[in-house]
């Protein structure tokens, strides 16, 4: 395990949905523009007010790293972090650990997969679209292998 996320007053509802294995983004109540991460204001029309919209966690691979340095105390195994361009929100990059035995490919289509890290913490990781995903990964490990 790495660090536990620290939800704030903007993000707590989002994390609660993730815990229920639901991927949602905010949608502006005025102009309908989706946004992520969770924030009070729409950056386009600058109004408050939004609704949650459940979206398919799909995107494409923008980049990735394979970490070797123990930046997280106690985590010594090489692990892969992927940067994904999220389909549901224009211009949005999100991160996660990579859930496949093979490395990602540039531009490949990926799907989110929920990982139960501990009993009270679930995070969203990413896997090749062809492999399915979405319904969750049985392992509690967050590293590549």
């Amino acid at each position: 395990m790495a660090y536990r996320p620290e939800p704030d007053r903007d993000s707590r509802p989002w994390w609660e949905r993730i815990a229920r294995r639901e991927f949602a983004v905010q949608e502006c109540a005025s102009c309908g523009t989706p946004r992520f991460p969770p924030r009070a204001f729409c950056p386009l029309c600058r109004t408050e007010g939004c609704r949650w919209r459940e979206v398919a966690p799909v995107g494409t691979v923008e980049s990735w790293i394979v970490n070797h340095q123990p930046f997280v105390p106690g985590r010594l195994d090489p692990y892969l972090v992927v940067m994904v361009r999220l389909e549901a929100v224009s211009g949005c990059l999100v991160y996660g650990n990579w859930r496949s035995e093979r490395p990602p490919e540039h531009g490949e289509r990926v799907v989110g997969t929920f990982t139960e890290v501990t009993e009270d913490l679930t995070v969203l990781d990413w896997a090749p679209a062809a492999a399915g995903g979405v319904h969750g990964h049985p392992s509690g490990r967050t590293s590549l292998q």
Partner: protein
Amino acid sequence: MHNVTYVPKRLLEFRNVTAIAGVGYTPFTKDSGVSTLTLACRAVLAALEDAGLTADEVDGLATHRVGDSAPPTLVGPALGLSDLAWHLDQFGGGSVSHAVVGQAALAVAAGLAETVVCYRAINARSEFRMGGTGRGVPVSPEVQYQAPYGYVAPPQQFAMYARAHMLRYGTRAEHFGRLAVTQRAKAVKNPRALMRTPITLDDYLSSRWIAEPFRLLDCCLETDGACAVVVTTAERARSLRRPPVLISGAAWGGGTSHLSGAGADPTVTAAAALAPRLYAQAGLGPGEVDVAELYDCFTYSVIVQLEDYGFCAKGEGGPYVESGATALDGPLPVNTHGGFLSEGYVHGLNHVAEAVSQLRGDAGDRQVPGAEVALSTSQPGYILPATSALILRRA
């Protein structure tokens, strides 16, 4: 969409109105054995000595920090400065380093203060490791979307952007390696540099992985040390000990966020938006820059800035370095002191000081003959959507 067109209206009142009159350093080490307050005082006094001034003449102090160092409100009293006319305690990392000097220049140009010393003092190896190893996660809302994946440190983040650039433009490990080798060759000629043993491309390619695609030799040093520069009016600087170096342009801001929500293009930095404003302030373009000290927290950050500051086309930064253009005898010598990769890492200020040294012509074996204009830049706006930079000119 937000799209402000900046029309400079008061250029003549800022361009070349202020100057850097002195620079000062402590030695760069891996363990200073003293507090950041001590380092700050030593660098401030060294810069004043260089300028031929005494602390009694200082009426402003400025620094940037991330909660890791002594602020002006400690350094002032420690040096017996009881009534500073102006000070700045800028929160932020490498992306604001040059904004501190720019704001000092503004304060001097506006007449709020006459002699401002900008400093940065860090124990970035022995106390608060800048690379992230062994310290807690920085506090930012963005962290919650990254840290759970073990994605917490600058080497990881810049490696991520570097691979995006490699994938899109064909930038290769050999390009990063050539940059590291070229900068080391300059550090060999710099008595202040921590790393003075030449390296080869093979040394680079065989150095251990930190976060693929980054190897150890892609990463800057973590350094204990301090650096300071004295900002005053150009008029006053002309009567001081050293040849003045004019501040022709100072810009900060720029760009969009590369955080989760707004990563439009991870291969373009805030520098691309800032550069036209900076050049307009100084009244020149990239073709007139003789020396560039580009923020090199990692090899890749130099390559992307070569593109975003207009020295080569987008995507051509790697081949540009490979051509030898950034070597000491190339058309654009970059990081003439060896940079953070080989001289030491003082979070931006040692780039400013080196630019001053080159323009004064006192850079010794690594002097670029006839250097008249220098660009010095901060972290180009990854992690936070802002950067800052200076254009300096020999008086």
